[in-house]
């Protein structure tokens, strides 16, 4: 892998993004706001305080985490798949000094970068709603990047394996939706039966939600375990998408 070559591909993605972002940016932005208003302000009226916090304040940081997750996942499932197959962008790029590992690295980093772009955007929104107590929340950004990388890795693994674009429905229904619902965004997972709550610990979103929530409240030391979890898993998963994309693209 050569960093300069990966950088060239990232520049391509940035060029395209800055050209087209107006058409997709609003979508990623409106949905979290809808959740905040409907769940936080609507449902929240009927919900008691959680850990001493009003309900809307409880879910705010979780919405930051889930927005970051969806940004990376959309990019590295549909985005990567379309570039790889229908648009044949990969073929065009691979005819230049860029090789497949450079390309895979760029796709992963771009997915993580999208997590940061949307994570920060929603962070601003949540702050404007008055739901952030501590500026320490800014320190969550590196973890949004690393957790975005985990989501990019999982998505690229899926992209390298799916027979067709329709298969992503399984990934979204069986993986993304449960993560979104059971990672402690809308209620503490401790409310679930112990065995079910235990599963959450093995999923990335649970840890990012915990980090965002703790940082927004100004407590960093509470979530050291989650920080370590994210660093280790991001590093451990990394070789897999490279191997699978090599197999998928080079036949």
């Amino acid at each position, binding site marked *: 892998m050569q960093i300069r070559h990966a950088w060239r591909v990232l*520049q*391509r993605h940035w*060029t395209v993004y800055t050209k087209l972002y107006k058409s997709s940016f609003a979508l990623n932005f409106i949905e979290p706001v809808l959740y905040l208003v409907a769940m936080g302000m609507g449902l929240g009226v009927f919900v008691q305080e959680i850990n001493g916090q009003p309900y809307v304040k409880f879910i705010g940081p979780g919405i930051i985490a889930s927005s970051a997750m969806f940004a990376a996942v959309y990019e590295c499932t549909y985005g990567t798949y379309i570039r790889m197959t229908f648009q044949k962008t990969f073929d*065009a790029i*691979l005819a230049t000094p860029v090789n497949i590992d450079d390309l895979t690295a760029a796709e992963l980093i771009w997915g993580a970068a999208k997590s940061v772009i949307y994570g920060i955007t929603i962070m601003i929104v949540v702050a404007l709603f008055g739901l952030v107590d501590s500026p320490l929340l800014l320190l969550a950004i590196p973890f949004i990047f690393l957790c975005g990388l985990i989501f990019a890795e999982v998505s690229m693994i899926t992209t390298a394996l799916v027979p067709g674009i329709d298969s992503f429905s399984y990934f979204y229904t069986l993986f993304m939706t449960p993560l979104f619902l059971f990672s402690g965004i809308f209620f503490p997972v401790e409310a679930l039966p112990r065995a079910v709550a235990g599963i959450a610990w093995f999923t990335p979103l649970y840890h990012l939600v915990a980090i965002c929530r703790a940082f927004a409240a100004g407590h960093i030391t509470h979530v050291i375990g989650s920080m370590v979890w994210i660093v280790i898993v991001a590093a451990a998963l990394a070789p897999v998408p490279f191997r699978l994309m090599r197999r998928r693209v080079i036949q």
Partner: protein
Amino acid sequence: MAIVTAQGLVKAYGIVKAVNGIGFAIEPGECFGFLGPNGAGKTTVMRIISCFLPPTSGTVTVFGMDVTREPSDIKARMGLMPQEDNLDPDLSVFENLIVYARYFDIPRKKAVPLVNELLDYVELGDRGTMNIKELSGGMKRRLLLARSLVNSPEILILDEPTTGLDPHSRRAAWDKLNQLKFRNTTLLLTTHYMEEAERLCDRVAIMDSGHIVATDTPQNLMQLHGGNLEDVYLKLTGRNLAD
């Protein structure tokens, strides 16, 4: 010294051998054509030479470097015009070439005049701001040709460069390729058009079922086997049709 060499080249998919033990040497400055029916293995050979596919066995070198060991250095000096349109639909005509130049580390200051020159060369100078989907098939082919020249390649690989073009566009493409030959660019092409091979190629290799059945100048092949190049082609590759 040969600019491209292949020895004992095999590419197998499971038990099917798309390329089955071929060898050739292409000299600098020549135009070398691969002819053969669909499925003969021409495109596979092109993809191996362009460092996209690793050979199953055998060695392929370009500029004296092994395609599996130094792909980036080889590709930096090579141009590739693919069979299918893989232009970037998210970018304009001009941006397509600018972004492509970046992959070759050409700084923007140099890239802008270069891209304008290339767009003029393929007669798309006034189309720079157009979207890719607004281009006709012929314009897309021309833009692909311009893109493949961005890095001033020493060798240009063209996979069926004129398939699907109308007769005027085809003649225009031949003129461009002849100009490149005069500039001493080595050309390597696949084609189904015998007229194209006769007009452009100094030497041709006729492929059938993963083998090269003949390599020679079109003139020698016609003398040896009689008739025009199409007759030679049909004679050497005909047995599959009888199956």
